[in-house]
């Protein structure tokens, strides 16, 4: 295990776990810890929290690229030092938040952030930043680049990030393989492979633990075989559902392809318990090309969905709740997307997605 063992080491590891947080909290936060009474959103990107004590705390929220550099983090620290006594935090969707009790700091802070290129917004009924993944930049199994897709999408959604004109929050995610590290979201952009893996037999006989790849397949499409006298695997292409699970276990199961690895768009995922229970997403578009560097087909489809939702959603309706009300038929009509036979579920629990009623929409 300790392949890095270095005899001259002097430091003895402290297995400390997460970094401590108390020293990170602003004094006003400490004084009102657990005793906040309410908050309001005085303008886009700004939260005002009021404590039972009457103390107020302003939060200015700004978007970041998530793929950051030490230079950028130091810039953010400069802002926090200038306006927030050195305190800041991040949201789980890669927004940075600056916390200050001093309301007069809010406007200058916004000006400075915007001047540095960090858009202030992401609070309330807007499109917040995208929960996204590593992609070509840093993962070992991606079919696309997540950061580039996100940058392209957020360029088109810039105003939706900075204004609160949506019926409710919109949460986006992207994932560069079907494992979907980006998670469930109101709208998700996820890679969908369309061609079964091609097996690199030379590679495979060298590196792969065969039973691992076999066991990874959810539909038992992988079988042992012998190729050129060596033990190897074969894929039953009629059975294979192109999930890519085997590729994660064995790099010789080459599923990524510049043309056959496509994008699918999913909608209606919801993580919060507010109103409806949390819900999983449904597929509404697929076979979109993986088209770097700007992925116009993907941003176009996301844009259509958001335009329809913005126009038709009622206050508090998340994308999935809006669709539940208007129905999938109207969703497809209003977005101009097309329902096709591949969107009928054929996996486990498929029946739960069938219409087991005489409810029909015309």
């Amino acid at each position, binding site marked *: 295990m300790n392949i890095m063992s270095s005899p001259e080491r002097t430091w003895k590891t402290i297995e400390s776990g997460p970094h401590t947080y108390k020293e990170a909290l602003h004094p006003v936060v400490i004084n009102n*810890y657990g005793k906040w009474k309410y908050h309001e959103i005085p303008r886009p990107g700004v939260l005002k929290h009021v404590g039972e004590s009457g103390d107020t705390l302003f939060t200015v929220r700004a978007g970041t690229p998530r793929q950051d550099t030490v230079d950028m983090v130091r810039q953010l620290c400069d802002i926090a030092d200038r306006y927030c006594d050195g305190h800041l935090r991040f949201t789980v969707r890669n927004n940075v938040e600056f916390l200050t009790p001093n309301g007069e700091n809010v406007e200058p802070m916004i000006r400075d952030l915007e001047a540095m290129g960090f858009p202030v917004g992401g609070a309330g009924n807007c499109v917040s930043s995208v929960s996204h993944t590593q992609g070509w930049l840093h993962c070992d199994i991606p079919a696309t680049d997540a950061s580039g897709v996100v940058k392209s999408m957020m360029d088109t959604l810039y105003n939706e990030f900075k204004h609160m004109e949506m019926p409710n929050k919109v949460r986006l995610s992207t994932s560069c393989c*079907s*494992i979907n590290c980006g998670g469930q979201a109101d709208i998700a952009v996820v890679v969908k492979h369309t061609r079964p893996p091609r097996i690199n037999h030379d590679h495979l006989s060298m590196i792969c633990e065969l039973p691992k790849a076999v066991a990874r397949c959810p539909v038992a499409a992988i079988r042992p075989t012998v190729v050129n006298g060596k033990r190897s695997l074969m894929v039953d292409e009629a059975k294979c559902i192109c999930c890519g699970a085997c590729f994660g276990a064995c790099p010789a199961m080459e599923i990524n392809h510049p043309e056959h690895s496509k994008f699918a768009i999913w909608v209606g995922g919801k993580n919060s318990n507010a109103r409806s229970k949390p819900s999983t997403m449904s597929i509404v578009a697929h076979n979109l090309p993986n088209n770097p560097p700007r992925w116009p087909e993907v941003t176009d489809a996301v844009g259509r969905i958001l335009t329809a939702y913005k126009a038709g959603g009622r206050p508090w309706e998340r994308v999935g709740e809006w669709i539940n009300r208007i129905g999938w038929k109207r969703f497809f009509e209003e977005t101009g997307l097309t329902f096709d036979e591949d969107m009928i579920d054929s996996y486990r629990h498929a029946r739960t997605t069938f219409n087991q009623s005489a409810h029909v929409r015309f």
Partner: protein
Amino acid sequence: MEENKGASACGSHGCSHSNGGCGEKFLNPTPMLDELEKGPWPSFVSGFKTLAERTKKPMLRGVMDQLEYSYNTKMGYWKGGLVTVDGYGAGVITRYSMIKDKIPEAAEFHTMRIQPPPGLHYNTAMLRELCDIWEEYGSGMLTLHGQTGDIMLQGIDEANVQECFDKLNEKGWDLGGAGAGMRTAVSCAGPARCEQACYDNLELHLHALRHFVGQLHRPEWNYKIKFKFSGCPNDCTNAIMRSDLAVIGTWKDAIQVDEVAVKEWIEEKGVDALVNQVINLCPTRAISLEDGGMKIDTRDCVRCMHCLNAMPKALSPGKERGISLLMGGKNTLKVGVNMGSLIIPFMKMETEEDREKFMELVEEIIDWWDDNGLDHERIGETIERVGLRQFLDGVGLDVDINQVSRPRDNPYFKAKY
């Protein structure tokens, strides 16, 4: 040896000399990536370029060249391996370039996962220390934050990993999880900055992850297991969907109502808004219109958070607060998406003893999974395969009607006779 890098790399990569930057620019041309410098959203490409031109780290030029190559060929070129630090079996994600013959400078670009403070609360001293160490030993490129909840320090040579870790560790930073063990946890802002928080999720997060620190650094279970701590059912950390152990703040008694604030809300927004945006949207119709105001029947409330979100000044969670535990959330691989489902409806979470009691319970749960789970099986999948009832039996938990959305709809079971 660094001063001539710009010029030599320029020749070897066939720079066109057209933009007059040749000989001055450290980076090679990246026309595809440059397209991502356009547009109003902050550009990661511009950030990388600034960093690379300032620090002139060959590794940064390598990774930009490889990314540009990926954008052209539409394929990824990293493969894994094994790098770790003394005494640990996880925490460094190894990346070797598959095209290092083409781009030698990208040969190694490992990631160090670092556990952030719960709630992602920082002060600038902490972040600056982190940045200084990372610039000294690594590429200076990082992600705040990865989907695992870690700070991802991206881009370091194997030779520098141990020393970088030692320096970070001296300043209170530790590696995050990877592999078949406890993983880095995620918390929302919590009581530090949210009026909805029903327990101290930041403290429980720290407590729990310290408790399992050994299993995080030396993974030896069936597969990974993740905690996420959300202060209330708004679940800002997406715990139900994204964690094996979703600890969600909740309350047992009535929603606290500030009658004056309710009146003000209605005066400002009107009765239509009260009906259309609050009363009608309660999922269990627990709220009714009464004398022009609202009345909540606590017995019908499922603690969904909607009315509290709509009227934050007027309504607050009740006083008898604690947590619900849901288990089994996971994403697609391989049986499809699983939502976590409710296992423990309510547990107090105020004192150190409450936290200890919770840790004992989680120990039991993980022991059960360790005994009954199969290789590469998340705990939710094990519960589904073996049966929720068998799981509850095995861990010694009470059966509770809240664990199901309704009783079974088929008669196929063996009753006692």
